[in-house]
């Protein structure tokens, strides 16, 4: 017994080091999927996110002009869509308020108070949380294209898992041929401006400059939102597929605003997805 105590005394530094190291490695490998860890020890908790919010309030003033321009461009495109839609051709029918049409998507405007883009696992923080009706697994879109999926929500803030995270997964469509592909961001090969689309059949006719759009499956995003533009096509002969490199529409180093997508029919869609 005496010897054991002497041994512990002799190696107490090393044992203490091992103890702390064990705790931190436990954090590292267990916290990834644990809800409770993520709620308290992540950047969307109250203290850290309010600090990020403070920083955003100080520095967002300098990029107001850029934000304004982006919103103007988006406004014009939306105006084009809306004004071109309801052109009166004849006066034979009157459009009544009916129950056949129902709004499918609701949008909640948010500010992106912190955007990581340099690391292996990048995250965004937005300044709206469960008090604003945001829940996990909702989509986030920007002014040009899709941004990410809500990962974790606290009262006033939410963490987003963006496209540029290796754990992000989404099915996307090729705009011209409607082929399905998988979005994959590989941190060793991609930077924050490009992303891979894999598992597209080799006979698909894909050209440079084509767009990939969101499919609308899983109810996360409305169909037809732009994801990125094709810049490089690599043929994978062994698997008979194409590996396509996209340039992401959104610039993750300077996003300031986004819109959280709430799908009203998401429960129904989930019901069908689970049955498979």
């Amino acid at each position, binding site marked *: 017994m005496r010897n054991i105590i002497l041994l512990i005394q002799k190696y107490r530094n090393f044992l203490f080091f091992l103890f702390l190291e064990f705790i*931190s*490695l436990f954090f590292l490998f267990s916290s990834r999927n644990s809800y409770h860890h993520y709620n308290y020890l992540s950047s969307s908790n109250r203290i*850290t996110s309010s600090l990020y919010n403070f920083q955003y309030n100080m520095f967002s003033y300098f990029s107001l002009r850029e934000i304004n321009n982006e919103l103007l461009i988006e406004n014009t495109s939306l105006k084009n869509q809306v004004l071109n839609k309801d052109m009166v051709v004849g006066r034979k029918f009157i459009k009544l308020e009916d129950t056949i049409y129902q709004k499918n998507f609701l949008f909640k405007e948010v500010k992106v108070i912190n955007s990581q883009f340099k690391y292996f696992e990048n995250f965004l923080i937005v300044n709206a949380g469960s008090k604003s009706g945001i829940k996990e697994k909702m989509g986030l879109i920007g002014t040009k294209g899709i941004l990410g999926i809500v990962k974790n929500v606290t009262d006033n803030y939410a963490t987003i898992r963006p496209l540029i995270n290796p754990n992000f997964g989404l099915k996307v469509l090729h705009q011209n041929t409607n082929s399905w592909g998988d979005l994959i961001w590989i941190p060793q090969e991609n930077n*924050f401006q490009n992303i891979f689309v894999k598992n597209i059949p080799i006979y698909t006719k894909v050209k440079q400059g084509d767009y990939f759009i969101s499919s609308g499956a899983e109810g996360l995003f409305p169909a037809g939102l732009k994801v990125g533009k094709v810049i490089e096509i690599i043929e994978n002969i062994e698997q008979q597929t194409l590996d396509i490199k996209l340039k992401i529409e959104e610039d993750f180093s300077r996003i300031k605003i986004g819109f959280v997508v709430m799908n009203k029919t998401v429960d129904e869609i989930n019901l069908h997805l689970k049955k498979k």
Partner: protein
Amino acid sequence: MIFEFRNIAWFLGLIVAQIFFIDYLDFGIYSSYFSPIIICFFILKMKLDTTVINLLIYAFFLGIITDVFRNTLGLNTSVLLIITFLKPTFLNSISSKEDIENDVELNMFTMGFLRYLLFFGISIFTYHLLFFLLEQFSFNNLLILFLRAIVNTISALLFLVFLQYLFIFKK
């Protein structure tokens, strides 16, 4: 007492500089190569007569706070603990024990510039190497990993020189 306050200021100041300044630097498409981490300076600059247990506790909390901000829970902490434990080894490898007095903080003015470069260079390079290895958790793309580690070490050393001229330099 003044020493304590100065340490607290360094502790908080390094975290703020790391999270709200260095992490926000934008170098366009090359910015994934520039993510230097300077928080280990707090551990490395500590006096030699600080006990290892104290150092380990400092390292643990420094790492945890940074990790919470950067959403990499446990990553900085584990690497920082290893660096803390290896600090005497690095120091012995570049100089004999009598060269540096026990109650002097280690920085480029007390150590001399060359020894600063060697000691801080080796430790910060090890930090980045272990950090990137643990982050990607595989041995793929080792060459790019080494390149990133070297680039980040150099930029972190430069930034630390700048910081020391600002806050430690006395005429």
